């Protein structure tokens, strides 16, 4: 088996392994946390292998695209399990799967709407999958001593959460995406409600569950709407997808000498749930009128040519007839016969050309007939974009969350155990932003240009400042970081809707960076909760001298979150800022998003440094510890978790180009979609 074939299996394992782990772990009892760590490490190893092998493939693709001058508008997943060509040839691949979960068509021979188990790797999800795999390790290490009640189930739910996250990142079938998207809710609900730290945990869990579910049901509506309104145009005779919604076919025609004539007809429409196929279809319907117009122009030109030929034929015939008359005057038998033959020939030619002209007229008529319908379809598609955009965004905005749909977050983060908050803030929030990149931008591109920055951008900007002020007023570190997360994600949403290479590269990179640094900051809080059972700022002070190692690690992570150069967030923030400087958006002519974003960076420094000042500076102050053993600086377990996160922040800050290079082709695809939408 070739490496690609092995990788297909490994990609499948990335989702299946956490699912299986989630089943096994509850049975292991007191061995469960060691087993959990082991399983997480094995999963990390698998992911590392995928990353290492995917990088060259993706880099190769970037080179290919650079050679071809890439204008691609469709995502191209690699290492798809169940690839259509996999059974014949290991290397050949068209990035489509043949693993169908549900067949919605009447009979199986018809290509129809199939929900498929369609997973794959591309530049956008590779690093997020890596983060989802990696972040579980520190999450388990931080939860080591905190879970007394049924640790097996706790770790099992954690793995189920991870399976949902990874599945969602990997999915290329919109329904599969939605299923994994919702799958994350169930473990999160139980983890918050059952192992939460505060008294309000059940209420928080219920609020979180219902709020996000309400939003994501709308997203499901949007997904179905997109699927229904964007069928793939298929050639009615060959059955292959066509580039055009109008196709030229031969129809039987008694009036024509050949018995057939050509007509423009609508392509057959086949519904699909495959994201790449949908991406192919969306622009077709948005340009249906243009396609019909082109067809009509083509037919009219043909008609004009035919008409000219007919005129030439008539002239020719007249000449021949004159020549015949002249020959008849001359009474030369041979000459008359020759002239008669010529006349007959000319007549025949003229008849042919007339038939040809009639065929062209018929073709043009068919195109003219379709034009109003095409115009209606295009107008329809454009108008629907707005509603689909609203529906799709509803669930994603709650998930991120974008202001003012964030009110579930402070409660959920405040009540959830630290290990879970790490995954919630580091990864689950990214499902929302990832959904925008994966679904919203490609499927409703015109609305994303029209309403993205002007409407969602305003909400995100308000959120940046609003959440920063909330963070400033928070007295609890956990709440402060929770609000800071809302603020940073507002910046990320702005970056996404800049809808250009810089903004999107920055946004996708920021998903990883923010996941690392915010996840890590919550992990730091684990230090406080395990020892003191509180994260209230007023009860701490001067810890720099008391816990020097913790201080160094916290400073690195906090400064990474502030966006200090040399650490990871700086790079992605600068890219997004650059993206906001050239949005090229007809509705946003000045630079207000960039100004708000830059001001947000300043506010970020304000509340973060305020936290550091209160907790690590000033005279020593610490509350009564909840443990009986002496309170010491970070232990080896915590040091390896936090140190690894801090190191990754530094590495990604200094050498981010590898990550940026692998995502470049796919970012380019999205940027192309954006450019196409701008010209429409």
């Amino acid at each position, binding site marked *: 088996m070739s490496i690609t074939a092995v990788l297909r299996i490994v990609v499948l394992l990335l989702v299946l392994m956490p699912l299986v782990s989630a089943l096994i772990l509850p049975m292991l009892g007191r061995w469960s946390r060691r087993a959990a760590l082991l399983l997480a490490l094995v999963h990390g190893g698998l992911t590392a292998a995928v990353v290492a092998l995917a990088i060259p493939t993706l880099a190769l693709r970037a080179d290919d695209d650079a050679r071809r001058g890439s204008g691609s508008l469709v995502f191209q997943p690699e290492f798809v399990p169940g690839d259509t060509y996999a059974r014949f040839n290991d290397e050949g691949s068209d990035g489509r799967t043949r693993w169908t979960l549900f067949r919605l068509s009447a009979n199986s021979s018809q290509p129809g709407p199939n929900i498929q188990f369609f997973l794959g790797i591309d530049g956008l999800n590779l690093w997020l999958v890596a983060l989802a795999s990696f972040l579980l390790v520190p999450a388990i290490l931080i939860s080591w001593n905190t879970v007394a009640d049924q640790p097996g189930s706790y770790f099992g739910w954690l793995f189920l959460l991870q399976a949902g996250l990874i599945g969602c990142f990997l999915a290329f079938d919109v329904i599969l995406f939605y299923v994994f998207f919702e799958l994350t809710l169930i473990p999160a609900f139980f983890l918050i409600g059952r192992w939460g730290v505060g008294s309000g945990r059940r209420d928080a869990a219920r609020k979180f569950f219902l709020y996000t579910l309400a939003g994501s049901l709308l997203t499901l509506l949007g997904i179905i709407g997109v699927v229904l309104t964007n069928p793939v145009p298929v050639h009615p005779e060959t059955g292959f997808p066509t580039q055009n919604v109008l196709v030229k076919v031969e129809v039987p025609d008694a009036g024509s000498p050949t018995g057939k004539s050509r007509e423009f007809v609508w392509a057959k429409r086949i519904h699909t749930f495959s994201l790449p196929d949908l991406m192919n279809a969306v622009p077709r319907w948005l340009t249906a009128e243009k396609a019909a117009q082109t067809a009509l122009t083509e037919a009219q030109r043909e008609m004009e040519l035919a008409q000219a030929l007919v005129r030439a034929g008539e002239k020719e015939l007249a000449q021949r007839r004159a020549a015949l008359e002249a020959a008849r005057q001359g009474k030369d038998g041979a000459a008359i016969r020759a002239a008669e033959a010529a006349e007959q020939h000319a007549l025949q030619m003229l008849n042919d050309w007339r038939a040809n002209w009639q065929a062209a007229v018929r073709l043009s008529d068919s195109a003219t007939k379709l034009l109003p319908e095409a115009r209606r379809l295009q107008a329809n598609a454009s108008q629907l974009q707005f509603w689909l955009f609203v529906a799709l965004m509803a669930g994603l905005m709650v998930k991120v969350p974008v202001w003012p749909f964030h009110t579930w977050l402070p409660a959920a983060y405040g009540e959830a155990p630290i290990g879970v908050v790490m995954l919630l803030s580091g990864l689950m929030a990214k499902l929302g932003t990832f959904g925008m990149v994966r679904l919203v931008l490609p499927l409703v591109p015109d609305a994303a240009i029209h309403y993205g920055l002007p409407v969602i951008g305003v909400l995100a900007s308000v959120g940046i400042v609003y959440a920063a*002020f909330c963070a400033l007023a928070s007295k609890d570190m956990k709440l402060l970081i929770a609000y800071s997360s809302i603020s940073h994600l507002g910046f990320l949403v702005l970056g996404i809707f800049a809808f250009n290479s810089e903004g999107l590269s920055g946004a996708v990179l920021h998903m990883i960076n923010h996941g690392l640094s915010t996840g890590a900051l919550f992990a730091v809080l684990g230090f406080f909760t395990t020892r003191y059972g509180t994260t209230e700022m007023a009860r701490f002070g001067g810890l720099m001298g008391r816990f020097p190692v913790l201080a160094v690690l916290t400073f690195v992570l906090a400064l990474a979150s502030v966006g200090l150069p040399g650490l990871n967030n700086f*790079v992605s923030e600068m890219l997004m800022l*650059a993206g906001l*400087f050239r949005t090229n958006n007809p509705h946003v002519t000045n630079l207000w998003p960039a100004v708000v974003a830059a*001001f947000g960076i300043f506010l970020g420094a304000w509340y973060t440094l305020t936290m550091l000042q209160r907790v690590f*500076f000033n005279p020593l102050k610490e509350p009564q510890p909840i443990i009986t053993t002496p309170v010491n600086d970070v232990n080896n377990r915590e040091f390896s978790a936090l140190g690894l996160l801090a190191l990754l922040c530094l590495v990604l800050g200094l050498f981010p180009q590898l990550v940026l290079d692998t995502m470049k082709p796919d970012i380019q695809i999205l940027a192309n979609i954006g450019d196409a939408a701008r010209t429409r």
Partner: protein
Amino acid sequence: MSEPTSLALAILALPLAAAVLAWLSAANATTKKLAHLPLILACAAAAVLAVILLGQMLDGHESRYTSEPLTWFAAGQLDVHFTITVDALATVMLGMITFIATFIALFSSGYMHGDRGYARFFAVMSFFVFSMCGLVLANNFLLLVAFWEGVGLCSYLLVGYYFEKPSAAAAARKAFLVTRLGDTGFLLGIFLLWKMGGGHTDLDLLFAHIRDHPPDPGLLTTACLLLFCGAVGKSAQFPLYVWLPDAMEGPTPVSALIHAATMVTAGVYLLARCAPLFVLCPEAQIVVAGVGGITALLAAFLALGQTDLKRILAYSTVSQLGYMFMALGTGGAISPAFAVGAAMFHLFTHAFFKALLFLSAGSVMHAMGNVIDITRFSGLRKVLPITHLTFLCGAAALAGVPLLSGFWSKDLILESLTEASESASPYSAGYFVLFLNACLTAGLTAFYTFRAYFLTFWGPEKIPAEAGDHAHESPRSMTIPLMVLAVGAVFVGGVVQPFTHWFSDFLGTSPSLTETQAPIARAVEHHLNWTLISISASLAIAGIVLAYVLYRDGQEKPLGGIDTLLALSRNKLYVDEVYYALIVRPAEVLAFLVRVFDGFLDGLTRLVAAMPRLLAALIRPLQNGLVQFYALAMALGLTVFVAFVIFRMAR
């Protein structure tokens, strides 16, 4: 890679290595005591390398060497490189930074002796020097920002070095945040330049692109002013100067480093580096010069009434930086090489005497048991003979006593201002006002400097109780740096500039100063302007004499009408209070209100969520389980329906 850039990289690598070594030394109690060695050795070696580099640049074939760019991050049109450039401007800065830092490091090894965070101190100091060297060498705007923020981080950590002191913690945060506020503008300016500069972020390419494709002047002016925001924050100019006087909460050597060689000079350097942009925008330049003028006068006024020796020095730094910005602001009206040369020359001499003054103040503080209030001690001439002399050298240089370093450089700035006021610039009148302002400031500078000097060292001997009975001169490791810097403060200005013009000629070879010429720039010849020399000399002497008359007995005494003015100065014109009331407090209140509103928003969400239940509560009574009620409802319903049907049919 060409030779000078490798040398520059070596200079950059040395303090970085020192930072790592000092950090590692903290692991062990014995090595921790040696944590100062890496910094001293690295700075000394770097200073030697800088001198070699200077030699290479002097007889070099090219005026600028640029290293091969290595990609840091790139996406779309944004391409950010690790790349450094070596030219005269960078070389002078490198030499100055490493030289001053060497002696500050030596001084600190004595001053910080036995402190708990000895290793931490030297690790951060090394990183500070590294960041500053990197800032000077960076040839890419975002790389420059990286080192710029690195400098900010180190100042944050060092100002907050005594982390258990609440005032130090507050000062550290204030320093970082106020400079960060300026940096917000700086970043926006960089991206604006990126947008109109053909997608370049490398300085040389960007400048060349803007020179060849002149953008919209309004936009360019905006970009320049945004860049200037960064400089205002970092170099403590009005209105963001408030962090610098507080920043002396850190150990005194840190203040010396911040005020002399690193940090505050970064803003001046940024504008010098970006001179090719600024000379194209006369509007931006008059703003730069104006802000510099306001700052110079304001800070000099604030220094008048202070009783904290370090605070007086801090305000004098702010004021002197204002001088440099005034000079920078004349570029474009006069030839940029002259304007930038004047600013950089003052930066150069100022580094010597300000480092000297701060270290001397540190020596006083060391002897007085960390008391720094000049009203609590006096007459220290006998107790601290070496410190007294070195402080006097520094004070005289700062005051602009003729023939000392500060005199020559201040003279050059005054000259650039007079030349600008005679130029064809539309704002020549403004430059004349600034010239008068600079003269007034010069007089004030001499006065407050010598006020501090007389109050500290003259009059009857008075030593605070904290010093105990063992007030004595500092150890050798502290006095040697003082003496070296004193020599520098006295002579360095006279040696390098006034008669040979060596400094400005060398600086003038920087391509960034020669390549772009403003259309209206007035060419200026270097010559000794005797009128100016006599004006500035008499101002300096007048200030000193006035201070002598008032304070020669080492005591503050009531001065009648001026006292209210001095009290106003002592209270810093209540600027901190005003900022607190106008910015910080409203922000805090707003934050509180937003937090409250967030609860309200949550309630609103809950209300929406409760709607179905509310609706259910309204309808629920209908399903009351009484068969009679159902029968009645059925009968009523049927009646209504039948009535409706009949009514329709009848119509």
